[in-house]
């Protein structure tokens, strides 16, 4: 039996590297759930312009816009987190990994804002 006591399934959460992993995993799973919906929506084009337009019209609703914004954040999070991982695994180790993480978070925000500006 494993040691009891606090948090034996999550031994060491709470530091930057763990949150980077968590964000990367959550965004990855969420994107995988979104992707089929995205392909389906675009596949409406196969039924002609009117069908695609019908979908785009529905997508003008504020709730959909909010979901799109969330999607951009998920995408940017997963991308920058992934780049950080590629750096950790392929580039010579540097103690500035946390700086890289911060840059990743910053870039995520920047992309999200850019999208927001074009949404608003």
């Amino acid at each position, binding site marked *: 039996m494993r040691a009891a006591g606090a948090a034996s399934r999550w031994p060491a959460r709470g530091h930057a590297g763990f949150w980077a992993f968590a964000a990367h*995993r959550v965004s*990855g*799973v969420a*994107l*995988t759930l979104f*992707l*089929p919906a995205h*392909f*389906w929506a*675009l*596949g*409406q*084009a*196969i*039924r002609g*312009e*009117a069908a*695609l*337009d019908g979908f*785009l019209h529905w997508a003008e609703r504020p709730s959909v816009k909010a979901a799109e914004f969330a999607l*951009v954040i998920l*995408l*940017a999070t997963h*991308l920058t987190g*992934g*780049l950080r*991982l*590629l750096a950790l*695994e*392929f580039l010579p180790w540097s103690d500035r990994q946390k700086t890289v993480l911060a840059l990743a978070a910053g870039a995520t925000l920047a*992309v999200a804002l*850019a*999208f927001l500006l*074009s*949404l608003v």
Partner: protein
Amino acid sequence: MSARAETGLWLTQRVSAAVLALCVAAHLVTIVLAVQGGLSAAEILGRTRGSAAWAAFYATFVLAAAIHAPIGLRTVARETLGWRGPTLEAAAAAVGVALAAMGWRAVAGLFA
């Protein structure tokens, strides 16, 4: 899975990740530009219909995603559900095939 297969999956995941990084960056820039001033089917199709370059780009994008997502899901399934063995591998492969099929259908719809 053997060491060689596991290593192959790891390498495939990193390569597809690098391809996706480029595709996603290009995609995000395109979308941000495209949604300026509203979006319509006519606008989208005007850009994409008949463009071999865009078709090739998005077909590659779909393939990279259809490879990358199942490998990631496989890892998540192993760690959170404890799922192992041939059924897991088959399920992951099925997800990949489904994503590729749906994605390429969409590409065909936009570019035909």
